[in-house]
């Protein structure tokens, strides 16, 4: 019990097609002084992360930056996975990058990051899966739940592309199903 009480906590968000605005919404709605680190893993076509962090930083409460190799994860900071690398989390709560084969046609893959993050944060991890047209993320949520973490899935009815959240729900790995509004409210209560 004591150990899980001391557990470091972290939010990790995965999204694909139609998830950009949702991530933006969540980042804008987090209350000032939000203490947890937020890791963002998005599928996208362009290979420029810098454009993405700029877009997020425009209105985000937390500072948003690209996750760098070997960087220590700090509280109250949002990190975006760079394009074309899998983003891994080490036991010492630092990032490492990996250029291995795509998973679900994706690099970064949500499953890969969710899995690594749940190894590092265990029951302290809150995984959020958003809109998308891909099966990525379902396996990751399953692992997060198995380790005692919290699994949140965007309500498919509110998702621009419902396939990804629906896939997670139908596979029975969704702990909570919420709209973007509700997700930000929930995170602010953590």
């Amino acid at each position, binding site marked *: 019990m004591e150990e899980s009480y001391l557990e470091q906590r972290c939010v990790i968000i995965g999204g694909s097609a139609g998830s950009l605005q949702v991530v933006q919404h969540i980042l804008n709605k987090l209350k000032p002084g939000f203490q947890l680190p937020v890791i963002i893993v998005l599928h996208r076509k362009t290979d420029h992360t810098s454009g993405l962090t700029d877009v997020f930083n425009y209105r985000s409460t937390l500072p948003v930056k690209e996750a*760098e190799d*070997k960087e220590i994860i700090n509280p109250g900071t949002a990190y975006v996975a760079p394009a074309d690398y899998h983003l891994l989390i*080490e036991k010492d709560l630092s990032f*490492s*990058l*990996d*250029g291995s*084969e795509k998973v679900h046609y994706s690099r970064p893959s949500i499953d890969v990051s969710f899995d*690594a993050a749940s190894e590092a944060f265990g029951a302290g991890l809150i995984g959020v899966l958003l809109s998308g047209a891909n099966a990525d993320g379902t396996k990751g949520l399953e692992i997060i739940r198995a380790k005692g973490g919290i699994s949140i899935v965007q309500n498919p009815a509110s998702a621009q592309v419902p396939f990804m959240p629906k896939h997670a729900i139908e596979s029975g790995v969704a702990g909570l199903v919420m709209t973007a509004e509700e997700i930000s409210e929930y995170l602010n209560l953590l």
Partner: protein
Amino acid sequence: MEKVVTDQQIEILLNDLLEKYGYDFTGYTRASLKRRINRLFSLDKFPSFAEFRFRLRTDERYFARFIEEITVNVTEMFRDAGFFKTLKEEVLPVLATYPFIRIWHAGCSTGEEVYSTAIFLKEANLLHKSLLYATDLNPAVVSRAAKGMFPLHHLKQYSQNYHQAGGTAEFSSYYTAAYDHVIFSEELRSRMVFSTHNLVSESSFNQFQLVMCRNVLIYFDKELQGKVFALIDESLDPLGFLALGSKESMKMFPIVSRYRQVGKEKIWRKVT
């Protein structure tokens, strides 16, 4: 993705590899290594860790497979076009001033990067006085690199990368197609030397004007990265260049004080 091999068991394996085969993976970042090991463990359907460990300890051929599968060999020609553009525009003109050019591709994988560099050297009319040393820990990729054969279905992408990097020739003039593969020209290959070399345990073997060590260091922890920087530094001419992968940097290491970054690409030039 099922976790079957635990953290503790990974350490046992790493210890075995060091003891039995002299390969030291203890400085590799664990999250990536753990993924690769677990992937192999389920791929080869071992019923238990004990059997996996036993096979690895006793069967040298399986050890070879382990090396092949554990290393990440993903690569492409003219990977990061912006990098190759800078190489062509900023670095090659400096190398041109040397009577003889030595380049080391450390962690060359299947060789796509080496052939890319050779093509730009040829276009700068430098290939005839250059030698490209291509090394990797994994012997399987080194022998593939030496053949200069690449799957045909990648060539469209490679040709795009080449033109994006500032290449102006007909890309297909550098290879001949054979069934589902292409073979790069003998002229390119004749200036290359291939060999296995382990950055963790082996020492510097020559002096170079350019060392490319791209997308290798992300798999190493900080301490090992520092050691490899020292090894590369030792292998670089006083005014030599070091090229890293797009997400790698030497900025956190004291050694950086003796280097100056070239443009905004991951290229550093030794200045003292």
